[in-house]
């Protein structure tokens, strides 16, 4: 690794939180801000939290009504087993390879708890989804941030590999939130192979929350590796593609020993019967629907990306249901201008908050309306990025 590459690797002290924003709760305050009386009322188009704009899949809602309501007074029981069995079948693994969580949030926190320590810290790209870093900070475990490749804002795998030596856990968010870029399966495997050889006690958590939205050739899941290799674990969620962000269920897939270790730390008592019955229904949704949802998202995404690119504002190669766009001005100015017209876009993501904004992909209709608002916001002269 060249010296210049090395300089991209920064070791952040526990207190050095400047580059990592506190978890998605920050978006809550963003919405609270949006809830302040506005001339045009509350935001009519929410493009700030990478949710599915179509809402929750109708089969999920039907299952909550039909199957969860009659059991709402009972602690969830056998449904846990049913969902684990269905997930195992879907992924061609065994139930012992699966751990359920209250969203993948709980999976991320559990992995951080189990695999990091005061001496073996967390390594993640900057920026990446912050849950693991937040938890490591809470526990006082060291955090090492690795800058992205500056040209395409993909994870810099050489730098990541270097920084990963001796780490307890590497958080490998792929596609990466908030920058939307993804790493191919073959590059990921090369990284994992190198890491396995050079760092005997490091576990890698591959967060595939946006898996269903990845469209680039060569993007693939690490589940087959995770079930074989005790040091690789994959996180998935029902929040995105199935529109279940408000229902709270996700899962980890990994080697049975890894899953047992994670399962021994925290309980599944946070997961509601609505989430479990909803997940069961989602797992019965045909793959053809998921393909359609991927297509729908890709179409609205490429419409919006092209709109920005045509005006000289470069998006990253998004493989998710959100975009990261160089708007050549502080995200905050853009966000505030959009909010005045009822469109809520993503919060600040340091160190890119002075140039880039994250915009979730709404429906095509929403994006067609939103670009008109973006047009107005971008027409205002960009203030100095001080």
């Amino acid at each position: 690794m060249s010296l210049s590459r090395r300089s991209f690797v920064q070791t952040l002290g526990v207190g050095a939180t400047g580059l990592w924003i506190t978890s998605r709760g920050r978006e809550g305050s963003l919405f609270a801000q949006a809830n302040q009386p506005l001339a045009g009322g509350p935001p009519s188009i929410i493009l700030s939290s990478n949710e599915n704009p179509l809402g929750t899949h109708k089969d999920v809602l039907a299952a909550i009504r039909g199957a969860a309501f009659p059991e709402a007074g009972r602690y969830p029981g056998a449904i846990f087993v049913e969902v684990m069995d269905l997930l195992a079948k879907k992924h061609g693994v065994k139930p012992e390879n699966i751990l359920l969580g209250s969203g993948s949030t709980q999976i991320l926190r559990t992995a951080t708890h189990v695999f990091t320590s005061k001496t073996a810290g967390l390594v993640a790209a900057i920026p990446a989804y912050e849950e693991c870093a937040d938890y490591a900070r809470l526990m006082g475990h060291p955090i090492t941030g690795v800058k992205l490749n500056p040209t395409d804002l993909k994870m810099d795998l050489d730098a990541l590999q270097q920084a990963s030596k001796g780490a307890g856990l590497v958080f490998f968010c792929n596609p990466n939130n908030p920058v939307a870029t993804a790493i191919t399966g073959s590059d990921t495997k090369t990284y994992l192979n190198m890491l396995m050889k050079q760092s005997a006690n490091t576990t890698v958590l591959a967060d595939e929350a946006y898996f269903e939205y990845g469209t680039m050739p060569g993007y693939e899941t690490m589940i087959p590796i995770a079930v074989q290799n005790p040091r690789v674990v994959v996180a998935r969620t029902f929040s995105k593609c199935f529109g279940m962000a408000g229902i709270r269920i996700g899962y980890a897939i990994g080697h049975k020993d890894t899953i047992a270790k994670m399962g021994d730390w925290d309980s599944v008592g946070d997961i509601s019967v609505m989430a479990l019955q909803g997940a069961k229904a989602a797992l019965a949704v045909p793959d053809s629907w998921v393909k359609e949802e991927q297509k729908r998202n890709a179409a609205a995404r490429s419409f919006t990306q092209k709109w920005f690119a045509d005006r000289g504002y470069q998006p990253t190669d998004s493989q998710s249901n959100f975009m990261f766009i160089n708007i050549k001005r502080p995200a905050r100015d853009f966000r505030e201008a959009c909010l005045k017209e009822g469109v809520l876009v993503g919060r600040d993501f340091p160190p890119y908050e002075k140039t880039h904004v994250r915009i979730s992909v709404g429906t095509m209709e929403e994006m067609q309306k939103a670009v008109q608002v973006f047009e107005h916001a971008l027409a205002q002269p960009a203030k100095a990025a001080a």
Partner: protein
Amino acid sequence: MSLTRRRLFQRLAAPDLSAHAAMIAARGREAGLIEYGEQGMAAGAAPVRIDSNENPLGPGQHVLDAIVGKFPEAHRYPFNATQHEGVLIKAVADKFQAKPENVLLGPGSGEILTHAVRAFTAGTRPLVTAWPSFEMPRVTAKKLGAPVKEVGFDAKLKIDVAKMAESAKGAGLVFFCNPNNPTATVHGKSAVADMVKAIRTSSPDTVILIDEAYHDYVTDPSYQSAVDIALSTPNVFVTRTFSKAYGMAGLRAGYAIGQADTIKQIQKFKMPYGLGTLTLGAALVGLGNDEHIQQERKRNTDVRAFTVKAFADMGITGTDTQTNFLFMDIKRPAAGFRDACRAAGVFVGRDFPPFEKQYARISIGTMAEMQKAVEVFKKVLGTTPTTSSKERR
């Protein structure tokens, strides 16, 4: 049953819950899950599930309607929903004339208990708990390697509060479940106040957690909630749940209330977005309907009295129950009783050592369920006591 299923249930049934606690799905459910899984549903009639201290009626229609009303926002993270956590926090605070900073939400009070143990105990700061009591704090302390000091009971199976105060010296956290699960007994307001005072004097850094999960079912006039003590005393907080009288065990909502400094320390461990958008909507509507809770208390009191009397007629007595379950001196091992009841389609509570050779915990179902259950109890208890037909699972 597949090997995997067996393993899952074994995890739940492991005698030392600390070893395999991952699948403990909140309060009480563990018992039912084991049996549900092993037996499946009894052929024909649905089993009478009186093993997990649930409200047999579930949530009221007003709560279910509220959930349906939230369906259009089910795809939104809770912080993006029109009724976000802040709205429920405010509603809870208002109920107790407190401020939002006095309130912490959790997906069930179980998570709050777990986080309190994480926040306040350590290798040198023990957990003090009655034993048996609700097991989650103890399970968590054992996982963390924090010592656990167990406190026993008086002759009426009320928690030995004097012993509890004494054991609290130097402890990180005192877990005081009032009424206590599984013994069903309660301490009155002055006993609680005296214990808190004693601990505050002898060990002011010790945090006291008063778990009032069964608050709404208490009928003993000497009892009063300790919320006012929590709000006026440092290092004391109360937990409540929507899982019992509110009938929402499957929906996962609970809360803690105490002074802001105390709440803040637990809050650090809170998992983001633990309460879903639908659950928030349900809890808000549930909280706002006090009349429904009054009715549920009356229903439980009536069915409880019927069941207690039916046992008395059989010559069987229990503790002075102040909850939605009974702790009955069946004069024989719980396991044999449980197996025999299960064979007749009635699921009762698991073993609670050291009382498992003599006492059974029986939750209160509907009147129709308890009438059916009583007939089964009569048959089972009318026979000569035997030891369990099976090895302890």
